[in-house]
Each structure stands twice: as C-alpha cells, then as structure tokens.
C-alpha cells in the first residue's frame, strides 16, 4: 500500500505492507535509525516517537494507520531537554535516550493540557514534581539506570 505522511517536516510517500510497523518503516525504509528497537512489543519505550505531538510506541503502530499524520523522530527534535540530559548525565549507553526524549516532550505537552496521571491527587494537575515525572515516564525503560539524571533534566526544562 502507498501512504503519505509528513516526517520531521517533510512529505514522504511510502510503499508498505499493511503489517509493517511504523518503527520498521522509519528504520528500514527511511533510514531514520535514531528511533530504537528494544523489545518490539510495547514494553520498553525505546521506539517512542511523536505523532502530531503525541507520544506513541512506534513498534505497536502500523505504518498505514499514520497516513496524513505528522511524525517527529529524534532526528527532527531540537529541544533544550537534549542539552539538559547531557548536563545531568541522564544517559549512559544512549540506547534508550531517543525514546526518553520523545516521550518526555510528549509528556510535557500532556501535562500542559491538564492530563492527570495515576499519582495526580484529586485529578488536580498542577506542578510537575519528581513523583509526577517518574510516574509519567515509567513506560521508558533504562537498563543503565540513568533515571535520576533523566528526571533532573526534565524538571529543569519543565521550568
């Protein structure tokens, strides 16, 4: 099937089988290998990208569902979080990092829109404290254990 979508600001047309995941389409067909595969089943978050600004795990997304959408991958991200992460040493091997960054950008937007999390009391969304960040980022695994640094960096850019 042929699909058209926008990726990192430019229009792309792809020929994909209906069962191909967005992750494989990005990595194998478009050469956008910044998005990582850690499990291919929605358990690790390494493949997180933004679709119209919302975070999705691209291994669980079929490419054909994203016809007409605007996809942003790490290659298209230019965000203060990237430098904040380096300063806070919120990365070691770097394999989870693109997913953490895309997920955090999506998470910050969710918070701004007033979306509550499992630890938000009485659904009163106010300040994004450490507990909120940790809860909201728990879909992104980091086996190197760089969690403290990631949270610190997100807190810094969340303001």
């Amino acid at each position: 099937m042929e699909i058209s979508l926008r990726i990192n600001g430019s229009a792309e047309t792809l020929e994909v089988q209906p069962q191909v995941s967005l992750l494989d389409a990005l990595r194998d067909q478009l050469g956008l290998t910044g998005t990582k595969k850690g499990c291919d089943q929605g358990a690790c978050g390494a493949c997180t990208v933004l679709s119209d600004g919302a975070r999705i795990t691209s291994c669980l997304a079929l490419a054909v569902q994203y016809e007409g959408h605007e996809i942003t991958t790490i290659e298209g991200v230019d965000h203060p979080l990237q430098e904040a992460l380096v300063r806070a040493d919120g990365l070691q091997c770097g394999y989870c990092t693109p997913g953490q960054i895309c997920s955090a950008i999506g998470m910050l937007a969710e918070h701004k829109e007033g979306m509550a999390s499992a630890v938000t009391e009485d659904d009163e969304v106010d300040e994004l404290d450490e507990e909120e960040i940790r809860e909201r980022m728990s879909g992104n695994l980091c086996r190197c254990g760089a969690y403290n640094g990631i949270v610190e960096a997100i807190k810094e850019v969340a303001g």
Partner: protein
Amino acid sequence: MTTAQKPTGAVGKPLDRVDGKTKTTGAAEFAAEHTYPGLAHAALVHATISRGRITALHTDDASAVPGVITVLTHRNAPPLEPVPKTSPLDLSSMVSGTSVDYLQTDEVYWDGQPIAVVVAENAAAANQAAALVRAEYAPSEAAVDFTGAEANARPQPSSPIMPAGAKKGDAEEALAAAPVALDLRFTTPPHNHNALEPHATVAVWDGDRLTVHEPTQAIDWFRAHLAARFGLPADDVRVLSPFVGGGFGGKGAVWPGTILTALAARATGRPVRLALSREGVYRTVGGRTPSIQRVAVGASHDGKLTALVHTSVTRTGRVGGFPEPVTTQSQHLYAAENILLEQKLVRLDLLPNIPMRAPGEAIGTFALECAIDELAYELDIDPIELRLRNEPEANPLDGKEFSLRTLAESYRQGAARFGWHERTPEPRSMRDGRWLVGMGAASAYHPAGYFTADITVRLSADGTVLVRCGFQEIGTGGATAQAQIAADALSVPFQAVHVEYGDSALPKGPFAGGSMQTATVAASLLEACKKLKRSLRTMARRTGGDSHEEVLRRANVPHIEAKVGSSTQLGRKSDQARFMLRLARDRRRWVRASTGAHFCQVRVDPDTGEVRVTRWTGVFSIGTVVNPKSAVSQLRGGIVMGLGMALSEETLVDPRTGRIMNPSLSEYHIPVHADVPPIDVSFLGTPDPTMPGGILGAGELGITGVAAAVANAVHHATGKRVRDLPISVDKLL
C-alpha cells in the same frame, strides 16, 4: 618548558560526557543500523528440546517464502573450526559463550539452541520463514532442574586466580561452640542482563577478510575468536563496536548469533545482518546463574565473630559456563576467627551462564549481608556497630595487606548523610501514615585489578592530542575519563584531547569487564604520556621553547607519538605473560577492592505487601574519582539494577523442559522510573596507592549489597525475613 604549564586539573572534574550530543540527537549508529549494498537479513530457528538429536528438519515451506535466499542447517552449512581450547595463558580463549559447533552436527544441547538460520532479502521474510521450519528430534535424558540437582553438586574447579573456597581454623566446630549462632539458607534466581540494545551482528566478507559490526565488551577477544573459528589470521578480521547499548556482561562473550551471521555471509556471499529479537537474546545469550547459599555465623555476646561459613551451589551448562565466585566477599569483609568458604557447581543441559554485573558478589553479598543483619538482631547490637566491631585490620584469611580499606569511614559518613540515628531498631516500629517504614544497611564489595592494553598517544604541533586504543564505550563514559587523564598527564586542556576507541584496527584494548577497563587503559595511557614527555624534553633541550607547540614547531615536526604495547605475535605473548606474572605478584602482596556502604529506606503496604524504595544513600571508595559525574551514574546504575534484583527480577526456567518461560521485558520486570527514588551517591576519594592513577573499579560495586540492604529494610519494616529473591508481594503476605 613543562614547568611553564600548570596542570589543567581535569581529573576530578564533573565534565559532561564527550559523546553526549551524538546520543541525544539520534546520530549514534549502533551495530544493527549498519547497512551495505546487497545486505541480506538472517533469522534463527531455535531447538525446542534440551538435549538430543535432530532427526529431521523440514525446510521446504521456509524456502518457498518469497525473498528467502537460503536456509542453512547442519546439512548444508559451510564448515567451522572447533572452539579453541581454553587456556589461562590466552584470555581470549575464554570468550566463547559455549563450546558448540553451531550447524556442524545434529546435536542439541539446550532448549533455544539455534538449529537453522534463514537468510532472506528482508527481515520480515527471514522471520516468517524461520517460523515455518519444522524439526523432529530424538530427545535424550536431560538435567534441567537446578533445585533438584543440588544434591549432585561438585566442588568448583579451583585455581590460584579463581579459588573455589578458603579455610581458616575450624569454622564448623567454632559454630557449634558459639554462644550465639545462626545457620541460614538463601536462594537467588537466574537473571538476565537485558541490555536495552538487543545483540546484533552485521558481517561482511571481502574475499577472505571478515568485517563484523557488533556491540561487544571484548573487541580484541572477538577478533581472536572469529579468526580461530573461520581459520583466518587475526589481522584479516575487523571488529567495529563504537557504540554498545549496554553490556553488563551479556556482551562479553561470543554467542551463536555472531558466528552464524558470519557463517551465513560466507555461505551466501552477501553482507548479512542478524538483529536478535528480545526473545532471541534470552534463548541464545546466557544470563546469571541461580544460587543456593548457606551462611552460618557464630559470635560471642559482645558481637565478635568466631565463625563464618559461606557455601554456594551455582550452575553452568554442559557446553560451557562460568563458575560463579559467590563467596569472594566473605574472604575479606569480616574479621572472623574461623572461616570456611566453599563453592559448588552443578552442570545442566541449559544455555550456559555468563557473568552479569558483579558475578559472585552481587548474589554473595545478598546472603552474607542479610545474615550479618540477622545476627545483629540476635545479639541486640546495631547492625552497623556489629560491622564496625568486626572490621579487619588486614585480610582475615591470611593477614595480607589491604591496599585501601575505608569501609568504616563509608559507614560513618553514610549514617550521618542518611540519618541512621532516627531509626528505631524494633521491627514494625516506624510508620508513615498507613505505610510501614524500614531502614536497612549493607556493605558493597568488589575486587579490583587491571589487564593490559596497547595505546598510542600523539601530540601535535597545533596543540591537540590524539589517544588511540580499541577499548569499548559501553556507557561508562570511558572516552571522557581517558581524555581527562591524558589532559592532566600532558598538561593540555581537556578539549584538546580526542580519544579513538571501539575498533579492532586501533591498538589492542582491554576487555570491558571486572570493572577494570578505566584503570587498565589509564595504566597504559599514563605510561605512554610519560614516554612522550621524555621525548619532548629531549627535543626541547635542543630547540628551546616553552610550550609543547613551540617545541614541535621549532623542531619542525608535525607531531610526536609514543606507544605502549606490541602488535607482533611475540609481543602479544610476552604481554600476556607479563600480565599473569603481575597478577600473581599483586595477589601475593595486597588485597585490592572497591568498597562502600548502602543505606536504604523502604515503605511497605501492610495490606498488599507492596514494597517501595523511598530513599537511598551510598558512600563508596573507588580510589581516584576521575569524573564524579559519570562515576555517580555508574554507581546509581548498579544500585538500580540491584533494586530489580531485590524486588522483581527473575528468569523463570521450566524445571521440566528447561525452557525460559518469560523471555520478554513485559514478563521480566526491570526497574522503571517510578521504582527509583533519588539516589544519594558520594565518594571518599582516597586514591588506591597500588593502582594506576589510584583508580579502582566503579561499574560493578554499586549492585553489590543492594538486595541485602533492601531485604534488611523490609525486615525492619515488617518483621519478616525474606531469604529467597526476589522479595515479591507473595512472600510478604
């Protein structure tokens, strides 16, 4: 000239890691992302019995899948040389994950062993076809149940480098006579490394030369092993590994995927990529052995240890594996009058085990440090006070000198930072609302040492420095740390140093294991810098000039270079021999280790048994802290992995079939953001006087003692002792 330049003081500064930007922009290219014109894709077919023979392999359906190039089995695969015999004189001989000659015979040695490889034009076709290969087997009897095999355990093979036990006095007798004694049994389950990057190989042949892209902790050993298996001179094999998406020991050996990718590339004449699925990693890359441990302690009423017994049973595979040194820390941590340590082994028809972060001490400290806490309660002495009363002056077993022993200071500083004095000793005595609160402590211990490495250091007339060494950057910040060391050694700014690594074409680097890489590379780097400065001084006597740049310009040379190590066969052999001699000599002289004290606070839900770790403090001694920022990360990373080990991690092996039942990240639970509180890490910072640059290891220390600190805190909160990891809710109800 050198007097005019002040040392830059880069060592000890919390500098940002040099590859940070590459990793935060998506520019870092991991192995699976390398592509070549005509690249073909491979997928593995796994055996579904634990032991026996393949009687039939039906590959027609697989071959018929559009895009399939070939299905390789033991009937049509090109030949492989056998696995080289292991020899202590050649460390690279230990790098083979198993001794199996993949696709050379019809024999099966573990459930999950690759029995066929599909090569196709794309990964989807390869995976689809692999699922269509059908095998028939003649199974033979297999031993796969670890707990059931305990009675058959045999003493581990022992060597001076890896002793399988130790003895001082008569510990059993002292135990029987002790006024206060405890005899306890602990168990730990198998674990998997679960580096976030699954193993992947891209192999390409150019005539008889082989290039392999693969994330590995052992570039040089990989090269030697591949050369041996394919009958090539080592110089005709190149291994590239600039980025490694986490290792933890799992990428320290050559597993079947690597060999089979190179074999498939040879058979098809195409470059081939094999990117393992998460399940593929579980089936073909060994993990941590389970253990059964006995710790028995006897003491006088005032808390002096009279007897310490620590024994272990672990497993290896019938076709390989690593006898885990579970009792190491028990040789060194306590001044017991009588000591008995014994390590036993069972051999099972399972995928062989492999070191995982702090093999031995990660699980050994769990049993020992829980037992000490239990003893403290028996004696009604504060657990930290009990440790201080038994802090040895010299190595308890043989009176050997400690090169650096600061454990008591770690406890003093840690207790103050953590607020240990607020703890009321009585179990279930502390609460936070409805939550039960508990505090626990435990010691961290990891032996230290260093290997050999070749290196070149080049100083250019433009003031830049190039350091070249084929070591591995697995997330530790190695390139940053070495640049800091070079900057200080040569009195140049940190930014002027560039470090090349991750390629077998560079001077031979060490294995990234045993927390020894930083000290090892530093040893050669410091030596090379010394040589370089000597040549520079000689040159300066002739030319004059008061800076490096000036001297080189006046001498009219673009750069000067110094090197350590030899790339000739003979040079390598003598390097190896020198290493073994130094190792033996150092072990006779000193006991070297990094150490530390962990403090943990948990809260436990009294109704559901849910354990949350809410606070953590660790004070560590890792010798010179080259880069406090990345060193803190290393320690935190170890602690986070330890939290998983304490509370949730467990590889489930079916005791009837030997099959791993939870080969995925959704069924094997590693810690997530919400599980990890802010972790307060600090360092004592005293250099080890016997180590290069004063540096001890940092990568593995963090995980040791963590599970014990959690278990001790859980006991303090609930009054329950859980001696079988993980501390899951069912064990607290």
